[in-house]
């Protein structure tokens, strides 16, 4: 046991791969979540505006293409296309940045459908009440519909971000040194497959459980404001 720890983590400061990898995984996930939320909300608002009013026809079409392509292809393929084709000519681009872009764009498509279902789940009477008070379409969305939609879909959104965190583990396909890649590197030097892989699995598990707990608390707090 002590020997395994020594070979995998102590020699040559190999633990640093883990720490650095964890930082990269968290960095990619964090910024991808932000891009995903922004993109997702924008797409959801465009799509539900089209559904409700028939306006924004062209934007709605573009959104549909985006959703179909992103949800119809594997995220690893998207990641590689963005790295090798879209940024192919500028090879000195930061791989972390490519990862953030790819996972953010990918996540945006799933967030969009979650948020749209949330908007649609808010009773149309809420919309009419807002408009009848004099709120514009956008103001009604912002002050009345979206807060309720957000509350309705918080569990689904949380789940999406847990999926995203785990999906970043394919970053190694473009040689990003994330947490999973760190295990890979250590294993190739220590000639021990068990310790690095199980350690990384445990770290993912702890991250996911912590995140789930935080979400649960947040949900409860949001719900208690309604009783």
């Amino acid at each position, binding site marked *: 046991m002590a020997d395994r720890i020594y070979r995998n983590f102590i020699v040559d400061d190999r633990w640093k791969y883990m720490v650095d990898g964890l930082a990269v995984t968290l960095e990619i996930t964090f910024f991808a979540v932000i891009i995903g939320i922004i993109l997702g909300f924008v797409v959801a608002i465009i799509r539900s505006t089209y559904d409700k009013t028939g306006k924004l026809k062209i934007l709605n079409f573009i959104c549909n293409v985006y959703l179909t392509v992103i949800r119809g292809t594997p995220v690893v393929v998207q990641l590689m296309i963005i790295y090798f084709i879209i940024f192919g000519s500028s090879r000195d681009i930061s791989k972390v940045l490519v990862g953030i872009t790819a996972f953010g764009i990918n996540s945006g498509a799933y967030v969009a459908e979650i948020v749209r279902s949330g908007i649609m789940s808010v*009773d149309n*009477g*809420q919309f*009419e*009440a807002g*408009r*009848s*008070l*004099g*709120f*514009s379409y956008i*103001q009604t969305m912002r*002050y*009345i519909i979206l*807060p*309720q939609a957000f*509350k309705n879909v918080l569990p689904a959104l949380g789940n999406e971000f847990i999926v995203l965190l785990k999906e970043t583990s394919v970053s190694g396909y473009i040689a990003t040194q994330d947490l999973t890649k760190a295990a890979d590197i250590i294993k190739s030097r220590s000639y021990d497959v068990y310790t690095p892989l199980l350690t990384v699995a445990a770290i993912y598990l702890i991250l996911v459980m912590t995140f789930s707990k935080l979400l649960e608390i947040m949900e409860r707090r949001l719900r208690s*404001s*309604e*009783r």
Partner: protein
Amino acid sequence: MSGNGILIQVQDLVKTFGESVHALNSVTADIRRGEVVCIIGPSGSGKSTFLRCLNRLEDPTGGHIIFDGVDLMDKKTNIDLHRQKMGMVFQHFNLFPNMSILKNMTLAPMKLQGKSKAEAEKEALALLERVGLADRAEAYPNQLSGGQKQRIAIVRALCMKPEVMLFDEPTSALDPEMVGEVLNVMKDLAKEHMTMVVVTHEMGFAREVADRVIFMAEGKIVEENTPEEIFTNPRTERLKNFLGKVI
């Protein structure tokens, strides 16, 4: 143009849904300032559609709605601005469930009229006092009874200081024992000369409070008169028939 005391002038209003549903067939009517107009008629006769066209919650297919001298059908008219002056009360209350009663009432005055929180809350509390619900200011909608919700919905609209109040069957979703408390609030409003357009099945209320009653059937105004004449001296078979069924 708002002379003659006319607040809303409806001219040849037409509304069709799709190809075949003619909800309104060229309806013409005036709503005068300070007047209470009750709209009665069988279900599906276009009462709600008429009311909802007044603030363009429903987009009319044709005709004109002149409110305060401004044609609401004109593309250049900022409808949001005019809706602030037209309060609306719905059958199903439509309170915002994620906000406290006070927040329900102060949101629009603060965001749309630039009132400070303190000012908006002071006005909201005064209105709550008037409808006997001041102690529920911090409650949430699902903690209230239907009658209380509807009274809140009325004062929420009043917070914007509207020039007219539009009611679409405000008591139809209520248990019978709660109808009175809502009608009383509406009667008080009428006494203060609020202009009101009320779609209702409460014939007693129409008879007692209305200055004028409009009877609609099949998307048209069939009879329009004082409540006295409508209820004791109906002229058309249609109205006689309708009254025979509901009274």
